[in-house]
C-alpha cells in the first residue's frame, strides 16, 4: 500500500539467561503508519513463524500504556523517541520509511535477560514488598471521608502513584538505579495521611532493599525523568533522599 513504511530492525536475540546473544537484522515491509510499534513486531513475527523461524520475544499485555509489561530500547532510548509514551503506545507514524532501528532489552545487572527483549524485573516487586504499603487489614478501615486530603498534596501524590513499574528509569540510567521507581512510591505515601505511621520505616527499608537488589546509586543525570512514560518528576528522588535521611536520623523510631 502506498504510504506504508519499510523498516530495518537490528534486534537483540538471546535464547536464555545463560546463553550468549547477538544482533540479527530483519526487514519489515508494508508497515501501516497506523500500527503500533508492537503491532509492527507482531507482523514481523507472523512472517517469521510462517517461514519456520523463531519469533522475537518481547513482553506486553495491555497495549495501552498502563500495565507496565512492555519496554525495550529503541536506538538507545527506553520506550523509543516519544516522550511520555510506552513502546506499546508508540505508533509507526512517528518513523520515516527506510529507518534502521536497533532494539535491545533493558540493560541492568538487576534485570537478567530471559529471552530476546524480555528481562526479569522481579527485584522491583521485592522493593515494593519492603514496605511499599500501608499496614491495614480488611476490617480496620475507618470511614473513607474521615481523613481529608487537600488537592495540592493529592495531585502531587498522584504523580507518584501513576508509576507503572516498567523499569524504563532503570534502563535509561547509566548506574542502573531504581531511584525514580522507589521514590515514586515513597513520595506518594509520604504525602498521604494513611502513609504517615510507617513513613520512616518505609523509606529506610525500600531504599536499602533497592541497594541490596543490585541497583546503582543516583548521580542526578535525570535520564530517568526523560524516559519515564508517566513523566514522573525527579523531585520525587530528592524527596526520597530527605525521607531516607530523616528516617536514619530518627533511627530508633522503627
Amino acid at each position, binding site marked *: 500500500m502506498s504510504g506504508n513504511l519499510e523498516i530495518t530492525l537490528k534486534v537483540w536475540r538471546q535464547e536464555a539467561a545463560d546463553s550468549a546473544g547477538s544482533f540479527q537484522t530483519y526487514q519489515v515491509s508494508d508497515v501501516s503508519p497506523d500500527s503500533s510499534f508492537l503491532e509492527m513486531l507482531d507482523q514481523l513475527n507472523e512472517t517469521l*513463524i510462517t517461514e519456520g523461524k523463531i519469533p522475537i520475544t518481547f513482553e506486553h499485555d495491555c497495549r495501552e500504556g498502563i500495565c507496565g509489561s512492555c519496554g525495550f530500547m529503541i536506538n538507545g532510548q527506553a520506550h523509543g523517541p516519544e516522550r511520555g509514551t510506552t513502546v506499546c503506545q508508540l505508533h509507526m507514524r512517528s518513523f520515516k520509511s527506510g529507518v534502521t532501528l536497533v532494539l535491545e532489552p533493558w540493560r541492568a545487572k538487576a534485570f537478567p535477560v530471559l529471552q530476546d527483549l524480555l528481562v526479569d524485573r522481579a527485584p*522491583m516487586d521485592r522493593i515494593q514488598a519492603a514496605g511499599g504499603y500501608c499496614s491495614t487489614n*480488611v476490617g480496620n478501615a475507618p470511614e*473513607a471521608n474521615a481523613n481529608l486530603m487537600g488537592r495540592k498534596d493529592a495531585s502531587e501524590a498522584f504523580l507518584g502513584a501513576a508509576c507503572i513499574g516498567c523499569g524504563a528509569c532503570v534502563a535509561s540510567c547509566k548506574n542502573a538505579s531504581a531511584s525514580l521507581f522507589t521514590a515514586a512510591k515513597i513520595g506518594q505515601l509520604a504525602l498521604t495521611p*494513611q502513609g504517615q505511621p510507617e513513613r520512616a520505616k518505609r523509606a529506610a527499608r525500600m531504599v536499602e532493599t533497592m541497594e541490596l537488589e543490585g541497583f546503582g546509586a543516583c548521580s542526578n543525570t535525570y535520564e530517568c525523568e526523560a524516559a519515564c512514560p508517566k513523566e514522573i518528576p525527579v523531585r520525587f528522588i530528592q524527596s526520597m533522599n530527605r525521607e531516607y535521611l530523616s528516617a536514619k536520623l530518627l533511627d530508633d523510631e522503627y
Partner: protein
Amino acid sequence: MSLDSKCPDGPLEDRWKQHKAKTLKLVGPINRRKFNIIVVGSGLAGASAAATLAEQGYQVTCISFHDSPRRAHSIAAQGGINAAKNYQNDNDSAFRLFHDTIKGGDFRARESNVYRLAEVSENIIDQAVSQGVPFAREYGGTLSNRTFGGVLVSRTFYAAGQTGQQLLLGAYSSLMRQIDLGRVTMLTFKDMLDVVVVDGHARGVVLRDLKTGELSVEMGSSVVLCSGGYSNVFYLSTNAMKSNVSATWRAHKRGALMANPCYTQIHPTCIPQSGDHQSKLTLMSESLRNSGRVWVPSAEKDARKAAQIPDAERDYYLERKYPTFGNMVPRDVASRNAKYACDEGKGVGPNGRSVYLDFRDAIAREGEDSIRTKYGNLFQMYEKITGENPYQTPMQIYPAPHYTMGGLWVDYNLESNLPGLFVCGEANFSDHGSNRLGASALMQGLADGYFVLPYTLADYIARENPETPDSECAAAAEATTAVKERLDRLVGVQGKRSVDSFHRELGMELLDKCGMSRTREGLESARAKIRTLRDEFWSDVRVPTGGGAMNPEIEKAARVADFLEFGELLVVDAHNREESCGGHFREEHQTEEGEAKRDDANFTHASAWEFTGVDEQPVEHKEALEFEFVQPSQRSYK
C-alpha cells in the same frame, strides 16, 4: 444435577448478615495456618482474596502468568468504582444500587447476590482509602464522585482515568505486605493449565513455568479461580492481550458448570478498528459520556467534516430517543443504537462504522482545563492512537467486546458445583445478569475478594477440614500427564498457520455472528464454522520450537485451543436462549422500537452448562431466578 444457589431467604437487607452470623462456620485462628489456599490470579479479585485470606492467618499461594502481580488486566480499568455512600446527598442507598444493578442486568441476576454487593460496596471505598488509594478529591479534601450509565445518582469513585490501576496497586500493596510477612507465596510466570480433583474436591492445580516450560503441581486445601473474563474469544477486544478463558475452561472440563456464556458486553465507546494490523481495541471510558455527546449526521453518507455540520443537521440519537437518560443509557442500549445508526448509513469515519463523541459543548461550558482535569489521560491516549486531537475534533467511537458477564457457575458462597473450587471476579457469572453497568466490575471483584470469599471459604474449611493431598497422588499425576499430552500434541502438529491467524478467524466469526446481534441461522452457521476451524487448527497450526525453553507461542497456542472449544459453547448458549436480554440480542426477539424483548415466562433462569466432551452436545442445567423485591419489567430509559 440440581443447582442449589444456597441463597438465604428473609428480608433482603438481613440476608448476608444472617448468613454470616448463623450459617457460616469459623476456623479457629491457630488452625488457619494449617490450610494452604491456592488463588489463581492477582487482579482485583485475586489480589484482594489472597491478601485478605493471609491477613486472617491462612497460608496462601497466589499464581499469575504475569511477571508481577501488578500487571493483571484490572490495571487497565479507567472510569471508576460504584459505592452507595450517598456522599452527594442525592438519595442514594444500598437498595438503589441494588435496584439499578438488577435492572441494568435486565433481570437476569440473583437478588440476594446483588444486594450483598451493594451492601458491602461502601466498605470497599473505606478499605481502598486506608491503603492510600488516591481517589479524586474535592477542594475541601473529601472524595469526589461522577455519574455512570444507567443510573440517576452520582456514586462512582474514580482516580482520574486510572481507577483500576490505583485500586489494583492498593490490593497489590496489601498482597506485597503479606508476601513480606511470609504468609503469601507468590508464583509468577506460571500458567495454570488444569485443576486437580481429589475425591470429588478441587485440591490443586497443574502449572506450566513460562520461563522453563516445566510442569509442576501445586496442592492445597482448596482452589480459588480469579482468572478474569473471556472477551478475547472475539480476538479484538479491549482486554489485555493475554486475558483468556483457559483457567475456567479447564475447570469446566473437570466438572465445573459454565453459566450464561452468551452474556457478553460490547462496550459502546471504543476506538474503532483502523486496519488488519490491529491487535487490540482501546476503550474510551464510559465516564466520557458525562461530558461528551453522541451524534451522527442526520443525512446518510454525509462526507462533511464534523465541524462543518450544523447542529440542526446532527442527530443526537441517544438524547432524542432516551430523553431521561440521554447519553447515559446503559451500555447495551448505547452500543445497539450505535450499530443501528451505522447500519442506516449514518456512520462516520473511513468505513462508516463509527459515531461521534463530541466534547465541544462541554468545553464551551466548563473550559478546556476542567475537561483536561477529568479526562486528560484518556484524551491523550486517544490522540496517541488516532493522531487526532479530541479537544478540537470529536472522538470517533464504535462498540467493542469488553466484558463477560458469563463465567463459572457459583452459589451464594462463590463456590462452584465442584466442591472446593471457588470463583471470584469476572471469572464467575454471579452479579451482573445479562448486562453489566459501568463501574461495577471493580466493585464486584473487590467485594468478592475482600468481603465475601474470606467468610465463605472459611466455612468450607471448617466443614471439610481438608487435608492437602500429596503432590504425587494419582489425581495429580493424571492431570499432569493430560496437560503434557495436550501440549505435546499442539507442538507436534507443525502445520503451516500461525496461532494468531486461527485466533483472528475465530474472533471475526464470533463478532459477526455472536456479537452485538445474533440470529438463529447465524449461530448455527457459526457453530459449524467453529468446528471446522478447530479441526483445521489441530491439523495445521504451527508452534515454532527450538528457540530456547521459553516459548510464548506455546502459551498462546494453548489458550487459542481453549477458545476454539469455548467459542462453540458461547454459540450454543446464544442459540438456546430464545429471547433478548441485556447484551444478548437475538434479532428474532425485539420490541417494535428495537429494544431487547425478554421472555420471562420461559427464560427467567441461568443456563449452566455441563461439559460432556469436545464435539459433544453440552447438557444444560437451569437455575431458576426469583424476584421478590423488584418486579421484572421492560426496561425503560426514556
